[in-house]
């Protein structure tokens, strides 16, 4: 299988009031294309830091991250932005949609930055919203949508341009259990139907259960890395 992520000897040390905090303390980690990986662990275990290093939002103190064969350490801020635009889709805990744009325009936004033609953009954005069962909400702004609907729009935005990797940081943190289940079913469907590689960072067991591989972090190190044959659904 094709390797999408490779992390070699990752460490990340923050200074907190002059006290060094080792968020990552030597992580070696690989993800193959099409995997659905859950990074789990208690607060402060380093799962979000690892996710951010993979997505090029944070730089490791030492070690190297490769995404789709590209070493992130050598990339400028501008090149990292391009990498995030083309190869990585992000789903954030607090949705982070653009408040002045409608659901459709939010989904179109990434494609606008990529220079996709208007007609194609609209068609793909409508199709994506339809496939996530929020097609009727296309003209509503984020403030007019529920948390679950906003997260669906965020997912639509993240995957509409077919990135090689979808990163979701605590995607269910602001959702109730029913909406969380719907959301995870959706991510699972995307993973299976589009063979999209998905990595989530979560401490919610209900979310972990959907992943085919569960990586448990404690104190910035991988404690366990297991394939779960009994992934939900």
């Amino acid at each position, binding site marked *: 299988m094709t390797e999408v992520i490779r992390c070699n000897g990752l460490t990340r040390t923050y200074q907190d009031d002059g006290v060094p905090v080792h968020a990552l303390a030597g992580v070696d980690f690989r993800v193959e294309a099409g995997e659905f990986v859950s990074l789990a662990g208690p607060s402060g275990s380093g799962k979000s830091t690892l996710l951010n290093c993979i997505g090029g939002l944070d730089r490791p103190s030492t070690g190297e991250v490769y995404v789709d064969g590209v070493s992130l350490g050598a990339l400028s801020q501008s090149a990292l*932005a391009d990498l995030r635009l*083309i190869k990585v889709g992000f789903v*954030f805990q607090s949705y*982070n949609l*653009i*408040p*002045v*744009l409608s659901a459709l325009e939010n989904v179109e936004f*990434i494609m606008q*930055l990529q220079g996709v033609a208007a007609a194609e953009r609209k068609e793909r954005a409508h199709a994506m919203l339809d496939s996530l069962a929020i097609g009727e909400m296309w003209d509503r702004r984020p403030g007019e949508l529920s948390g679950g609907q906003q997260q669906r729009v965020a997912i639509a935005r993240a995957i509409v341009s077919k990135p090689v990797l979808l990163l979701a940081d605590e995607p269910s943190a602001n959702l109730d259990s029913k909406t969380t289940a719907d959301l995870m079913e959706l991510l699972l469907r995307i993973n299976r139907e589009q063979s999209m590689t998905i990595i989530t960072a979560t401490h919610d067991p209900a979310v972990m259960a959907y992943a085919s591989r569960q990586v448990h972090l404690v104190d910035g190190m991988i404690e366990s890395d297991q394939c779960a044959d009994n992934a939900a659904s």
Partner: protein
Amino acid sequence: MKIPLRTLLQLSWRNIWRHRRRNIMLFSAILVAVSTVVLANSLIRGWQVQMLDTVVTSLNGHVKVLAPGYLDDPSIERAFQLPGGYKPALAPGQLRAWTSRVVVPGVILSERDTRGVQLVGVDPADELQMSFLADAQIEGEFLASADDRRVLLGAALAERLNTGVGRRIVLMTQGSDGRNRESGFRVAGVYRAATGGLEKVFVFTGRAALQQMLDTQAITELSLRLHSNGDRAQARQQLQQGFSGEEVSTWDELQPQAASMFEFADVAIVIWFSIMMTALAFGLINTLITAVMERVRELGMLRAIGMQPGLVILQVVIESLMIVILGVALGISLGVFFVQQLADGIDLSQWAAGIEGYYMSTLLIPSLLLSDLLLVAALSLLFGLLASVWPAWRAVQVQPLEAMRR
């Protein structure tokens, strides 16, 4: 990097309406500042136009030819003759009017008083194109021709001499032979000028009449009025070629104090504009920093999903410039409206004595120059641009991850 300009414009426009109240305040500040600058500029420019008009029509003209030494010793001995049928040869379209005069110091006597004055022999028809007499109120009659042996007095002088229209006065001066001449003249009319100083100094009579009294065919000055003040240096140069033995001077050389004030008006416009725009720029930067820092999380998110830092800056700048452009456009319109409301002028007659020294008349009429409006528009946009780039640049200095945690 391809710039999705339409996307940025759309985002910017909607963001403006999202923070309606703050942006209306920002817009209002620009509106007030720009309209005030336009109005102030037009008043200063109006003063400058008036100053130039006053100096040029106070018998200076834009360019004047005098005999050498006349300025130090203005007597009929320092005179020159014009060739027969002379006409100034300037570039086409430059010359508005011209005349020759005899101007000598003299004394005027009435039954009541005696005053020292400037006796001015003129061609009345030319003078109506050249000097303040064209706009002066005349009681009685204007001079009929260059041969007219009557005089035209200023109202202030007539009052001092306790004389008036139809009365006789006596003029005394030195003739071309160096001997004193004395002759009686009847008062044809009394003029009222915009400034009282002129009324006390100049006594007009026909040029030929004064030449006869002085026993000369010569003139003491050739004065030219141009269509454009900017042509005066070139006109001076061309005149100098025809009058190599005389002194050719522009009005600013003849009236250096007025010239300094004229230049100061240009500087005053820049100073006033700079003060207003600097104050506005600080307000803009302050408001825009607040506006941008409130949205630092959102801007961080845009970068996190792949928007280039340069595009984020551009988006913020476009947003700011939209407000600035609208404010400047309406500010200029409002300023022009104010100026139009003052088109009949501002009456300054109660300060008449004080403003005379500034070459102002008692009616200040604002003057709008397209170049001034363009300068205001261009500099306002430049200030707006600089004031918006700084907060935007600051916003993208925050790393996306850190921004999204705020």
